[in-house]
């Protein structure tokens, strides 16, 4: 079985985010680049499926990123992925989600796959749109927001998180799955994994090599960022001064009832 995990390289989540007022894009210079934390859950889910399935199951990481991001991709290999495909092309700069999905779909189709696993969103742009688009472009069922993911023969069985619980869903392979943070606890790359990652292949491809045309990059973008604003600072929470613990507890209960938490 061939499992593909899509990953994105994002600015360190702990660093302050800045947007360049000229280009209206996130400033990525001077900030360390890391694997999108959500994608680590996707990779962990894929690695667990591989460990369970055994045999000749492989996990390939696919990303679209500048070539200097190789070291970050190596972390995915150190965690246990077998190899990686990197779409690196100056032309890709300025791609919107649709352009990215389009390019990734080409690269994934070229690689071949039975299952694609994605994180639900990235910590930089946070659109959460990519998995759905990618499933559509690959022409396979998309099972999204999963908190549980299993493969049973040629069927994917999963639990999809909903507002008030979860839904059991399934689909035949090939398919695409996106997983949430509740699905697992991503592993650390081991020393053995880090030392072994050097020997694994990262295939770097240009857009042309992946068969991607003009649909992508600044020119092909279908969306445009017209402006941006910092959200207003969150107001201070309400502070109650309760006379004693019982009165305080009652107040909390009232609040929870009001918000329909209980």
């Amino acid at each position, binding site marked *: 079985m061939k499992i593909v995990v899509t990953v994105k390289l994002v600015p360190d989540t702990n660093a302050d985010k800045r947007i360049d007022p000229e280009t209206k894009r996130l400033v990525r210079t001077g900030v360390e680049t890391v694997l999108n934390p959500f994608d680590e859950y996707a990779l962990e889910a894929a690695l667990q499926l591989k460990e369970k399935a055994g045999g000749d199951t492989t996990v390939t990481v696919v990303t679209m990123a500048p070539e200097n991001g190789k*070291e970050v991709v*190596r*972390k995915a290999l*150190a965690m246990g992925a077998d190899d990686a495909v990197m779409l690196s092309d100056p032309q890709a700069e300025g791609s919107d989600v649709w352009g990215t999905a389009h390019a990734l779909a080409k690269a994934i189709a070229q690689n071949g796959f039975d299952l694609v696993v994605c994180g639900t969103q990235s910590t930089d742009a946070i659109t959460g749109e990519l998995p759905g688009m990618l499933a559509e472009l690959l022409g396979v069922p998309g099972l999204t927001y999963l908190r549980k993911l299993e493969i049973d023969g040629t069927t994917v069985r999963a639990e999809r998180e909903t507002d008030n619980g979860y839904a059991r869903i399934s689909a035949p392979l090939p398919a695409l799955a996106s997983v949430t943070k509740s699905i697992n606890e991503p592993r*650390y*790359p*081991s*020393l*053995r994994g*880090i*030392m072994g*990652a*050097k020997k694994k292949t990262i295939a770097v491809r240009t857009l042309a090599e992946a068969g991607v045309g003009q649909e992508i990059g600044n020119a092909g973008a279908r969306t445009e960022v017209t402006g941006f604003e910092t959200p207003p600072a969150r107001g201070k929470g309400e502070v109650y001064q309760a006379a004693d613990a019982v009165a305080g507890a009652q107040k909390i209960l009232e609040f929870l009832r009001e918000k329909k938490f209980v």
Partner: protein
Amino acid sequence: MNFDLTADQRAIQTLCRDFAENEVKPRAEEMDAQAEFPYDLVKKMADLGLMGLPFPEEYGGAGADTISYALAVMEISRADASTGITLAAHVSLGSTPFAMFGTEEQKQKYLVPLARGEMLWGFGLTEPQAGSDAGGTRTRAELRDGSWIINGTKAFITNSGTDLSGGTTITAITGTDEKGRPEISNIAVPQDTPGFTRSKKYRKMGWKASDTRELAFEDARVPEDMLLGARGRGLKQFLKILDGGRISVAALSVGLAMGAYEEALAYAKERRQFGQPISKFQAIQFKLADMLMEIEHAKLMMLRAAWEKDNGREFEMSASLAKLYSAEVSRRVVNEAVQIHGGYGFMDEYPVSRMYRDQKINEIGEGTNEVQRLVIARLMGL
């Protein structure tokens, strides 16, 4: 000249930092308060491959270099010095003698489980009456009918009495050389040897979660082939081990100092007096600037010594300089870190209180500051 770490070194440092932040740091206060040996953290470090970091892969290690090892010890110690010394003593002192001096059979039997972190091992040099004067060993081992019969006492031995401890390698007098001086050899003594007992854990000022015990040998009998390395080379061999060990003690000191500096920096920005954060006072800014300057200096010395070792250079001088300097820097830094915290820094709920207590041993263990100066003077040719 090139100050960039390699991709492997960076990846290992990042792994250790993430591990230390997420797994070690949250446990540090409680481990200190309970003087509780962190079996779970040792297991996790073993699973990650840290316990065998610099040893060859064929012996269960990860095959990484000394720079990576120093960075690993530094990052773990930044979160908790007890966990840092547990790792450093395991690798540098417990396991390295087998890697450097062991026969193939000894490596298979001991180095492999040690590198996998399934077993810990002690390094028994110090005795109640032989500390800095390590050659003043009184422990004796007599070869009788194919066995060493050992009698004596060892003091302050790290990792010697945990549930995972498999034994301790000691220095012992095994005869007299042709000049009539005591002949000292290394013997590996397994934990279950009759006549070999460990005291309860010492009650300590710092490194409370690390395991330190006194060892007693009363007619303890081990097979002749537990001799490690050449007969009569025991002191030289152990001093050689300590040369490398100094790089890891430097890493312990640098890591501890970084941890204390970071706590002080965060606290200074938060704590308000006279209507503003205390970080706005120049007196506090100067302290923080000096702390960072000294830490950077110590770290460069540590990395330089590690680099020399990795590149097959003579590294005794730079290791000793780095050990001495970073130990003294760690003292100045923890001292100012507590100062910046004021009274809160004296309270155990604040990590700097633990760091202050954990620091002192850096100036004593594996050669005191005075002994480092003696070593440096000797290497100068004085």
